[in-house]
């Protein structure tokens, strides 16, 4: 290509690219276009890609179950709120009728903003910051517990664990990551714990640590020095791994590690990085219902699509992302329209029975603020290299082990 030709081609391409967004015609769709926003690159890439698996399998499963056609349009927030915002605008421009996303509370808040301004429903898959459904949005819906609900469920399960194992730990040391999520959880714990007299233990020390901590020697030394019966932990993934290893190095063997509801402990990476050291950690958190019909169906689709992955590790991310898309599809079916206002009204009327959801909880219904109440947590314990539901008893796959046996080198 000669230089002038090249320049002309370049100019033509530029004009085309520049004009494309203006000439958009919104086709009257028979299909529901669902814009899915997830952090598939950047610092949160791991969880974003895990959630993505739930979105990828949704169209096939939903066609089979509801007989409606949905089309997923993906966007990567790059773990960045500004990008989340412009990508949300772009998805709407591309004709998305409903938005789903976006794991991180900050990014979710940015997307909610756009959705509200444009009057396009936004269904949050995962994000726990309580404020999002308190800001007065009309088009934002969340089927995920707020941090305070998450903590309440987590602490209640803690009581059940002690009852089931006939143990009475007297003291705990509370470590939490000091980020948006960790702080919301810590506030919940601080507010709830004094009022829950069924819990036998006292918190001896609270240690907040930096989410980007490279080294947790001091934190673990301090926690060990508190000499508590068990460790209550609100963590993310990487810090959880560093922390568990540091515990082994410092030969600190409390009765166990129990999280009142956070990611980290049940994730594949945690088990893969720590091997036998990962065993017995307990996380009381949102989960998928291992016994529901929906889990079987989605699980089959998951295995077909990701033959190398184990569902248990992705269950929560896949479950909540899938359920969010399910809510959209269900509303579409009832509204018989892709018109955003009609969709939003239909979403408000949502009543998905327990049997038709994958995540653990009651029927999906939104309160006037657009929040689903009554989502449940389960006590997930790492047993034989697999996160296993141990409580509540009706969903349990195994019995909870507490205190944990002392770690022996494999």
């Amino acid at each position, binding site marked *: 290509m000669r230089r002038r030709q090249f320049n002309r081609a370049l100019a033509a391409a530029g004009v085309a690219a520049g004009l494309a967004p203006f000439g958009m015609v919104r086709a009257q769709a028979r299909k529901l276009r669902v814009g899915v926003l997830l952090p598939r690159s950047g610092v949160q890439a791991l969880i974003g890609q895990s959630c993505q698996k739930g979105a990828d399998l949704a169209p096939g499963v939903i066609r089979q179950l509801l007989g409606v056609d949905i089309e997923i349009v993906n966007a990567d927030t790059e773990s960045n*709120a500004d990008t989340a915002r*412009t990508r949300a605008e772009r998805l709407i421009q591309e004709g998305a009728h409903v938005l789903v996303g976006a794991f991180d509370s900050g990014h979710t808040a940015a997307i909610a903003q756009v959705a509200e301004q444009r009057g396009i429903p936004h269904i949050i898959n995962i994000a726990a910051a309580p404020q999002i459904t308190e800001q007065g949005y009309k088009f934002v819906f969340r089927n995920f517990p707020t941090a305070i609900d998450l903590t309440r469920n987590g602490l209640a399960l803690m009581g059940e664990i002690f009852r089931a194992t006939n143990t009475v730990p007297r003291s705990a040391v509370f470590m939490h990551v000091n980020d948006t999520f960790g702080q919301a959880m810590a506030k919940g714990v601080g507010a709830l714990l004094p009022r829950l007299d069924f819990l036998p233990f006292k918190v001896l020390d609270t240690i907040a640590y930096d989410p980007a901590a490279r080294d947790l020697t001091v934190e673990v030394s301090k926690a060990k020095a508190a000499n508590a019966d068990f460790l209550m932990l609100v963590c993310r993934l990487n810090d959880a791994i560093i922390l568990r290893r540091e515990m082994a190095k410092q030969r600190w063997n409390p009765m166990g590690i129990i999280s009142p509801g956070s990611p980290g402990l049940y994730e594949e990476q945690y088990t893969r990085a720590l091997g036998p050291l990962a065993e017995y950690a307990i996380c009381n958190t949102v989960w998928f219902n291992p016994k529901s019909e929906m889990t079987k169906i989605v699980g089959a689709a998951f295995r077909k699509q990701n033959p190398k992955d184990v569902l248990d590790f992705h269950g929560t991310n896949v479950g909540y992302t899938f359920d969010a898309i399910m809510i959209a599809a269900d509303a579409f079916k009832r509204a018989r329209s892709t018109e955003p206002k009609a969709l939003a009204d239909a979403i408000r009327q949502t009543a998905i029975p327990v049997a038709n959801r994958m995540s653990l909880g009651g029927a999906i219904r939104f309160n006037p603020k657009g929040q689903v109440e009554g989502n449940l947590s389960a006590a997930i314990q790492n047993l034989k290299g697999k996160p296993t539901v141990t409580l509540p008893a009706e969903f349990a796959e195994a019995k909870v082990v507490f205190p944990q046996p002392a770690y022996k080198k494999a």
Partner: protein
Amino acid sequence: MNRRALALGVLLLGVMLLLPAFANSYVLSVATLILFLAYTGQAWNVMMGFAGQLSLGHSLYVGVGAYAAAGLFFHFGIGPWAGIWLSIALCVAFGAAIGFLAFRFGISGVYFALLTIAFAEFTRIGFDHLDWTGGPGGLFIKVAQRDQIDLANFRGPPAMYYYAMLVLTAGALALCAALLRSRAGYYWQAIRENEEAAQALGINTFRWKMLAVLLSSAMTAVSGVFFAFYYNNLFPEQIFNISRSIEIILGPIIGGVGTLFGPILGAAVLTILADAITEVLAALGWEIPGIKQVFYGVVLLVVIMFLPHGIWPTLARRLGIGK
């Protein structure tokens, strides 16, 4: 400036003014983002491009400005028109502290740049422990009703934010053009080119460098206030992040450091580039996470290697508008 430049400028301004009438809201949001980066880049340019003081911590002023106004609004219902003054005052105080300490102790170049990073990071972690602004949990402001314009509290539809940013950017451009031709502008350029020589000529370099820092921080405070009321939620991790500082300075560097139109052009080119790469990759079906940023990095690399003074000087020469 010649007539050709004037004509181009007027044409551009006309297009920008009419944009909300024919652009869809995606385009409008990208344009708002461009203007936000252009304005903030312009503010940074006052410090670096004019006076030669490299700041890699401008997120500090965006963050402090945003939090001050948002905090007043959140806690006391005081709107941004009053809050902006607190934002400016606080940012100027921060700028004054940094400038005073650095220039009194003779810190310049890389060392000055790192000092600005250190202050931004220090403040970020500080805000993580500040309960008044919600700590790492974030500060959430009540959102606007969709269709109603409430100028007193700076709430309204996207076009309102767009015009606000357009006014700011145009204002900053006019201010910078005036500054460059003022005494301060000439002193700054003298300091930028050779500080010792400037000093030898009797220029009070401390005073003029301080002026640049104060002006730059005050201007950036305003973009922080805009940010707070446009996004309605603030997290220290996001707003003070070093990657935000970098985002701010990419535009002016790519566009042309020290030029008037460089920051605007750079912000436009980079923002459109980022979205264009995403579009092209999506069209090609290459949905590999990370690939977009790799292309973006390669483009940055190529521009900085082959256009050492940025795009604007070269483009201006091609268009025949001189400077």
